[in-house]
């Protein structure tokens, strides 16, 4: 899910760039040498995984997985997703050059929210904690992105209200799909390779 080129008004996409730059600066703080290749390589996986198509009735949709990025990369999910969006704009012409900022906020912001939800799991001592909170993170990541997208459209002009509503509605089935996939992945990772998950101890970033 992303906003295409040409839709948003100039103030909105410019503000998107400003906001994304600020978020990137904050989330990339204290990045050490070791993280550079590691984040890049994991970003490549998310980029590739987002090409997976899941059948949805007669059509099929691509996975978003920004919630999972939050779970795995913590705050670093934001720069990672921004990299993915830049690459997507350059390689496919998906999204577009002017909307890199707003698309990063939309998906990367969703990932940050998902990470915060994921971190809440430490307060609960329940069975299948990773599955449940992974699913919540997946759902929250998707729906937050949908809300940012709708807001960007609405602020662009009232002519886009109907589109915004449609887009938001379309995020609901996607939210369920993401919840299941991300929840299952989170549970799988916690079993097989727990060190890959961000913030395994409460309160730490990545």
């Amino acid at each position: 899910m992303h906003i295409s080129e040409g839709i948003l008004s100039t103030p909105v996409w410019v503000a998107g760039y400003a906001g994304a730059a600020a978020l990137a600066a904050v989330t990339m703080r204290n990045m050490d040498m070791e993280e550079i290749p590691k984040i890049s390589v994991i970003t490549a996986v998310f980029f590739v995984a987002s090409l997976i198509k899941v059948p949805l009735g007669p059509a099929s949709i691509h996975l978003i997985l920004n919630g999972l990025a939050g779970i795995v990369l913590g705050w670093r999910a934001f720069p990672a997703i921004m990299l993915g969006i830049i690459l997507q704009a350059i390689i496919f012409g998906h999204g577009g050059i002017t909307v890199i900022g707003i698309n990063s906020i939309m998906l990367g912001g969703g990932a940050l929210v998902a990470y915060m939800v994921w971190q809440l799991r430490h307060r609960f001592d329940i069975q299948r904690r990773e599955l449940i909170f992974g699913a919540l993170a997946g759902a929250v990541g998707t729906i937050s992105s949908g809300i940012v997208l709708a807001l960007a459209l609405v602020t662009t002009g009232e002519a886009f209200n109907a589109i915004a509503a449609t887009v938001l509605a379309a995020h609901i089935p996607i939210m369920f799909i993401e919840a299941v996939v991300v929840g299952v992945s989170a549970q799988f990772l916690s079993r097989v390779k727990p060190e890959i998950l961000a913030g395994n101890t409460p309160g730490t970033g990545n």
Partner: protein
Amino acid sequence: MNERIMIDVDDISFTYPDGHAVLKGLSCQIRQGEKVALIGPNGAGKSTFMSHLNGVQLATSGRVVIDGIEVGKTTLREVRRKVGIVFQDPDDQLFCPTVFDDVAFGPLNLGLDKAEIEARVKEALHVVGLEGFEERSSFHLSFGERKRLALATVLSYQPEILVFDEPSTNMDPMNRRKLINWLKASDKTILLCTHDLDIALEVCERCMMLTDGRIIADGPSKKILYDRQLLEENKLELPLALMTHELLHGILYTEDMDDEHRQIISKFLHAHRHAHGPDGHEHVHLHVHSHDHSHLHEEVDEEHFHSHPQHQHDHGHSHGHDTLPHTHDDYDHKS
């Protein structure tokens, strides 16, 4: 030899949309119970050919018939049920949380009932010697174990035809030996795509050479794999077993030795090849020791020291290209 034709490939070609042709009129037939090695240099089209056998790729022209069923969009389910492919890298085939789930993946896709699935998983794990590993995660297994597990995930599917892509790659010698024993003992129809010509020589009676999208030679392994000229033209190397044998001949003629002795030794090395050559005795050594090696996890025993006798080859001390006894060539160079 059983007359039921399990794999019937009739003049298939495959060209990518960008115009790159990989298969260029390839034909072959494999009968039930045959064990066939498919050799050829990198980039010859071996992987593409394999993907045609179960319809993961569909031929641009020509047809592939698996046990009487023509491979096509409507027959994919049936065909994939019959053909099991064990890929080179086990990690490409293991993506479930537990060993049990990985082995049950195929049977689940077949829609079998729970009891049947459990029975099949149990059996497949037994064959590869991984009983008791059900609840483990494949990520925590050693490479050799993962390689065996990958085989189990295909066996549980109970295909009649097994296709292997480089089964011995990265295996330590002990696991390689176990695999060879299992392959030799299996009664399935087996196609073995490999660079490991020694495994081809040991397991398969028949060998096909694929080069540049075509089968350019097809015949008894001990013919094809001893044909130095053919192998070298196709960037392959003589099997080690044979190289050693040749070497002895080379030495025979450089050592300081009287002629009578030389003759005796030469005769021995020579006789030895012909005793197991195309005169009827050829399968004796292949089968005599393979009675109960159906389990990969068996300890390696003395058996493997008997496995090479029919592979020896004699052409004197010359290292030229024209030393093969072409007089009884019963295979055809199609190139």
